[in-house]
């Protein structure tokens, strides 16, 4: 067995026991990258030299007996988190040459924990998309079927873990951008509670919805990553100063007597029958594990997508105003005067989907429309949050499919933005409500595509999610498969 095939916690043990070195793990991962990256295209930029230098440093530390939580673990970073001295593009032409002079808080935390960065993972431009096809640097392919998309927007991060090009990765989730690609790539992906993980240095898409989280090979790895990522950051005003438990203690704990809510509104038309079947199977698994499935209602579910596609573009239209060609990034070379520079820079620097959302958002915030759109959407958001508060009085966690369909083909939905937007119907509500969610592998379609099961919890109940997801993982007895690459 190659080192890149192991889970994070398995490698942790090997490091602790002195069986392997950080350099060996890094070398194994880069061998794998060399073998499969051409097919998958999970990365915008590889950091091979930096990785081996970091591995040597970590090995020296280990020799001195200093072993940290992620010592020697190769991690991929979505190219939306700022890395000091390393280009950070957000998948966009407009930032193709941007080199941040600072690290995102999560990047610093990972570094401090001994992680080795293997590269900057591909993503939909400014995280706007569900397929990683809007990336300026070309699409990423699903390791399970190279004709298919890996999901998005954190498609590169999900595919990198699935293709074993890293041991774990970092993504960001604004409407499902971690959970949806995790489901489509057959890996674990968690979106923590809004405010749980620092957003400082995360290039903003929709500030009130964005949240950073991990992709891992299993639930225990997710707990290990969350132990590193979670925590208060004084550099972020919306960061919440609440205690961070040791998430690992929730792994393998009993869930007997738990009530699992199944929202009736999530049984929607257009859902793939195999996905429907996998949810039924998951219910059976949980019941066998001693939990009880109960029906709950989230009555405002039908308005989630509409509210999201007003709030997210509105915030994005403002967040992306700074890309004006004045201080950094791309500037249209032939611009003659100020207005011309703005127009040409933004016209040439942004892709079609980003421009579409800037226009939607600008419209929604315009005088005379604000009340009808943005304000109304914010009110709907409050109702959605209350739906969850009510539902969590009836149950401990909520279980849903992570996506309505398995991975679709490249190009299949690029001409139909509305169809693309609907791939997030099961994940968007958690962002609007600010609650945590996790997507775990729930089996495969007959065609061999991964299916994801999503669990949602109340605010700051990431521990509960790890507990239930770990119980599901243990009791589902899913066949262990690896993508054929």
């Amino acid at each position, binding site marked *: 067995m190659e080192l890149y095939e192991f889970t994070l916690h398995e490698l942790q043990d090997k490091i602790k026991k002195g069986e392997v070195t950080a350099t060996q793990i890094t070398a194994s991962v880069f061998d794998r990258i060399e073998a499969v990256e051409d097919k998958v295209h999970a990365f915008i930029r590889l950091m091979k030299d930096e990785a081996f230098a970091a591995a040597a440093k970590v090995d020296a530390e280990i020799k001195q007996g200093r072993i940290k939580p992620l010592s020697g673990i190769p991690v991929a970073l979505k190219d*939306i*988190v*700022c890395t000091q001295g390393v280009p*950070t593009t*957000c998948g966009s032409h407009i*930032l193709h040459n*941007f080199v*941040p*002079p*600072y690290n*995102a808080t999560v990047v610093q935390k990972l570094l401090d924990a001994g992680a080795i960065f293997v590269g900057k993972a591909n993503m939909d431009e400014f995280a706007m998309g569900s397929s990683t096809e809007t990336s300026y640097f070309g699409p990423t392919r699903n390791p399970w079927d190279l004709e298919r998309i890996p999901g998005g927007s954190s498609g590169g991060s999900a595919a990198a873990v699935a293709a074993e090009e890293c041991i774990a990765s970092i993504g960001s989730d604004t409407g499902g951008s971690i959970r949806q690609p995790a489901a489509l790539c057959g890996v674990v992906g968690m979106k923590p509670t809004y405010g749980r993980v620092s*957003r*400082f*240095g*995360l*290039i*903003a898409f*929709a*500030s*009130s919805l964005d949240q950073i989280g991990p992709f891992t090979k299993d639930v225990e790895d997710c707990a290990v990553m969350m132990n590193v990522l979670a925590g208060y950051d*004084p*550099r*972020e*005003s*919306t960061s919440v100063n609440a205690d961070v438990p040791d998430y690992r203690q929730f792994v393998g704990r009993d869930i007997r007597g738990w009530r699992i809510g199944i929202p009736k509104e999530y049984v929607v038309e257009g859902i793939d029958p195999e996905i429907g079947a996998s949810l039924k199977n998951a219910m059976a698994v949980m019941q066998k594990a001693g939990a009880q499935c109960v029906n709950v209602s989230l009555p405002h579910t039908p308005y989630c997508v509409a509210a999201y596609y007003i709030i997210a573009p*509105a*915030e994005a*239209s*403002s967040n*992306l*105003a*700074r890309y*004006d060609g*004045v*201080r*950094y990034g791309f500037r249209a070379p032939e611009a003659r005067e*100020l207005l011309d520079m*703005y127009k040409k820079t933004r016209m040439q620097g942004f892709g079609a989907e980003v421009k579409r959302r800037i226009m939607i958002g*600008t419209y929604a*915030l*315009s*005088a005379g429309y*604000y009340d009808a759109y*943005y304000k109304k959407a914010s009110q709907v958001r409050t109702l959605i949050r209350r739906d969850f508060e009510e539902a969590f009085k009836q149950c401990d966690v909520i279980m849903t499919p992570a996506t309505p369909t398995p991975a679709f083909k490249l190009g299949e939905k690029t001409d139909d933005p509305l169809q693309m937007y609907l791939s997030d119907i099961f994940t968007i509500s958690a962002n609007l409500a600010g609650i945590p969610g996790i997507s775990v592998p729930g089996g495969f379609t007959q065609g061999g595509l991964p299916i994801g099961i999503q669990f949602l919890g109340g605010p700051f109940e990431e521990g509960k999610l790890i507990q239930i997801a770990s119980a599901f993982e243990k009791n589902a007895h899913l066949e262990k498969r690896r993508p054929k690459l």
Partner: protein
Amino acid sequence: MEFEAIIGLEVHAQLLTETKIFCGCSAKFGATPNSHTCPVCLGMPGVLPVLNKKVLEYAMKMALATNCVINKTCEFARKNYFYPDLPKGYQISQYAHPLAEHGFVIVETDGRRKKIGITRIHMEEDAGKLLHDEHNPVSYVDLNRTGVPLIEIVSEPDIRSPEEAAEYLKRLHEILVYLEICDGNMEEGSFRCDANVSVRPMGQKEYGTRTELKNMNSFRNVQRALEYEIKRQIYLVENGQTVIQETRLWDDAQGATNSMRGKEEAHDYRYFPDPDLVPIVIDDAWIDAVKNSLPELPIAKRERFIRDYQLPAYDAGVLTADKALADYFEDVARRCQKPKAASNWIMGDVLRFLNEEKRDIRACPIQPEDLAEMIKLIDEGTISGKMAKDIVEEMYRAGKPPQTIIREKGLVQITDEAELTKTIAVILEKHPDQVAEYRGGKEKVFGFFVGQVMKATQGKANPKLVNELLKKMLAG
């Protein structure tokens, strides 16, 4: 037809915090371009604002000092527009829920007191500055000022004349400086004012069309610009033309306002609550704590000076216009126990010296204890008021205490009766004709003898004593 002007003012005051409103950069004026910047105020990708608590505290001080109601919760909003001096493409300001509302300040014009309402006070960040190359078609951006904290103080349209507008501004300025939250420097832009003005025939209820005036960097220019603009609008109305709603720039050299036409497109700022900043919740305890920390405000101080020091209103007004001056006066008055004399010396001589050199009272070479000592010396008769005039000037120039100057120049007043009697006797002997005239009833000659004594003593003789002795000795 008689017309009435309706004026409302918007004042932007830079707060005197050490650091900027949302990052740790220095907020000081005048540094090398772009040296007071960081990823946060440069609007780099992924960075986030964190509110400087001092800004909130300072803004609360101003709100309470102008009788505003502080809202229990307020929030920051984004004002979206593109300009190279605005790195994020939006300014963080307050919109639907400002910090404070419904205040007022009292102004006095022609002896009449009037309340000018304050609609709102809100916090926001300043923008940077563009520098245009004079020789090449190039512009540069200096972002040192980006993120320097501002408060915007919006008045009700309660102001009816340019004089009232200037008075209102002076009162606001005075309060800001008293609170030590703004340096009030209009030339450097720490205190800026825009005006909205319209005219209507006396008695008409509806407002006329207003124009917005900008670019007035002194109290006097605000007044001049308003005077000009009111005349211009009245002329238009009287001649059947219409006032266009627009922004006009004051041109100081030309003494006129000019339309900004072309530059001013209808802006839609697309305000919305800033999702990067949480709503600010202010409880009563905090409001009370800030209230208790407020210093005595100008209007209260003025009244106290009149009441406690028995000063004329004019003196109280001059002395309290600057808090440091008021403190200086109080220090002198407390030490010498002669408030009116202290006021006279400060307003007459000390301020004249300072004004001549454009110096601030804080840099006055005369220490309050020295001025108090000098007033005591006059009171005790050690020196005369006339001598004091020279001594105080020397105190200012040399920065020495009065006793030193008196000793160095031998300026002590002659109060020795025997010595003066001797001097007078000599003078009387020298001028027998005048003595005869006086004794013959020509009392005017008395002044001549006083002059002679003063001349002989180089002005050092105690005038009271000279009078007494002369009268006695001339009487024979």
